[in-house]
């Protein structure tokens, strides 16, 4: 009888062990399947979003709504300008796309807006991404250059953004925190001395707040230290309206600088191609249309200056040279049109 009892016990132990092994097997399969399926969804979403970005960047001047995945999209550029967007754990490189976006786009549909950067020929399209969770305060001073910049911005910005306009930089400290995920102050050529971000409402202390001040050839970025109402500032060069918008929609100075670096590299390439094309036209038309003279000295300046790009403040001293060369090329192109000659670009 005792022996039979032992046999029964061994039988049940055997069944328990076998059952546990079977359950463990199933649990491991389910866990693996879950992680695989999550990875698959992230990969598919990333590829689809990348395709949407590629399409959006080509449709210049248009704004479109993008459906954002539940967990949102993160955007980040490293110090080495390795720029990626993240969906879950999956990162996808910007590659050749020049994108300016907040650190995280989540919650509501995003607005993707593209604009072309011309100098004076089209160099590249930029893609700006934002959503209504970001509040923009545009601050300008009436009857100054600041107001002129505001008019340009006001005419161009797409609808659907959360924008408030302030005509007095002194009113910034009295703004209450309205519960937005991110708040960005856009100062338009306001004297740096009249910007008082440290005096902001204490409710902003633990929130995501940043600011830019757009000057003639430079942009000053103000970035908040986490948990403090203390801002560090850095200055970057800019040329052209598209880069002005880039500073407004960039998560930080790093993202702006990386976009700027990619843009100047592209400028150098496009300038080389247009310069070579103009030389070919000149050679072909020297006999049949001698009145068509292509003065291309400014291309050398443009190619040289764009090749020397650096994101530091010292490069902003070269911006007037780039602008002058671009204007001279545009004038030369206009003259050639008046003479019924093929255009430079």
């Amino acid at each position: 009888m005792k022996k039979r009892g032992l046999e029964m016990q061994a039988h049940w132990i055997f069944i328990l062990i076998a059952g546990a092994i079977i359950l463990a097997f199933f649990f491991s399969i389910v866990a693996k399947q879950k992680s695989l399926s999550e990875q698959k969804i992230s990969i598919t979403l990333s590829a689809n979003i990348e395709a949407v970005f590629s399409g959006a960047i080509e449709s210049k001047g248009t704004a479109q709504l993008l459906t954002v995945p539940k967990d949102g999209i993160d955007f980040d550029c490293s110090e080495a300008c390795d720029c990626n967007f993240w969906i879950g754990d999956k990162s996808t490189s910007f590659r050749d796309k020049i994108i300016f976006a907040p650190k995280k786009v989540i919650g509501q549909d995003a607005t993707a807006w593209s604009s072309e950067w011309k100098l004076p020929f089209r160099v590249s399209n930029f893609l700006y991404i934002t959503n209504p969770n970001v509040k923009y305060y545009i601050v300008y001073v009436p009857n100054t250059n600041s107001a002129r910049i505001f008019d340009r911005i006001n005419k161009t910005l797409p609808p659907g953004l959360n924008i408030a306009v302030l005509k007095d930089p002194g009113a910034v400290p009295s703004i209450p925190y309205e519960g937005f995920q991110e708040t960005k102050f856009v100062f338009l050529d306001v004297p740096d001395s009249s910007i008082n971000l440290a005096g902001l409402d204490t409710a902003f202390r633990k929130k995501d707040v940043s600011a830019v001040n757009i000057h003639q050839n430079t942009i000053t970025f103000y970035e908040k230290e986490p948990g403090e109402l203390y801002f560090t500032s850095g200055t970057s060069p800019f040329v052209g309206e598209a880069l002005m918008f880039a500073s407004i929609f960039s998560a930080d100075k790093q993202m702006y600088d990386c976009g700027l670096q990619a843009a100047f590299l592209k400028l150098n390439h496009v300038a080389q191609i247009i310069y070579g094309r103009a030389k070919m036209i000149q050679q072909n038309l020297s006999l049949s249309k001698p009145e068509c003279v292509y003065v291309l000295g400014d291309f050398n300046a443009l190619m040289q200056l764009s090749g020397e790009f650096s994101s530091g403040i010292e490069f902003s001293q070269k911006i007037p040279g780039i602008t002058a060369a671009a204007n001279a090329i545009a004038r030369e192109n206009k003259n050639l049109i008046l003479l019924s000659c093929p255009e430079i670009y």
Partner: protein
Amino acid sequence: MRHKAQIKMFETMAVLVIFFFLLVGGAAFYFQIQKSSMQREIDKQQQLIAFQVVQKALFLPELDCSFVSIQKDNCFDKLKVKQLSLLLNDPENEDFFIDYFNVFGFADIKVTQIYPRVNQTFVYTLYKNIPDDYSSIISTQSPVLLFDAVENRYDFGIVEVDVYAE
């Protein structure tokens, strides 16, 4: 009595063996289906990538035809095509080629004039970077206008883009 218990034990083991046999068979079937669904997904992604490369090629600012700063869609400037091709195929200008790898990756992009047919055919390989080992090629052909700035004339051409998947 002992003999009976042994038979019972063997019975249980036989049930377990059959159970695991069915489980392995089911799992193999399931993973096979998963594999083919994954392959379909990979093919879809490759087609998306190929589509993006074609789109980039068609909208390159380096090649566009613009008149008084207004661009013409689906139009390449012949001289710009020639110049970009020269720069990309210049062995001394390797950096230029590397920069465009970021744009096109592993692809072969060719522009050919198809009408009017002339003695000296306009065929330019814009970009060519074929990997040593690839699993598939996705080829597309898109019609474009080819603008001849010297003659102030439009011709018809085709952009052939082959995208290589590793």
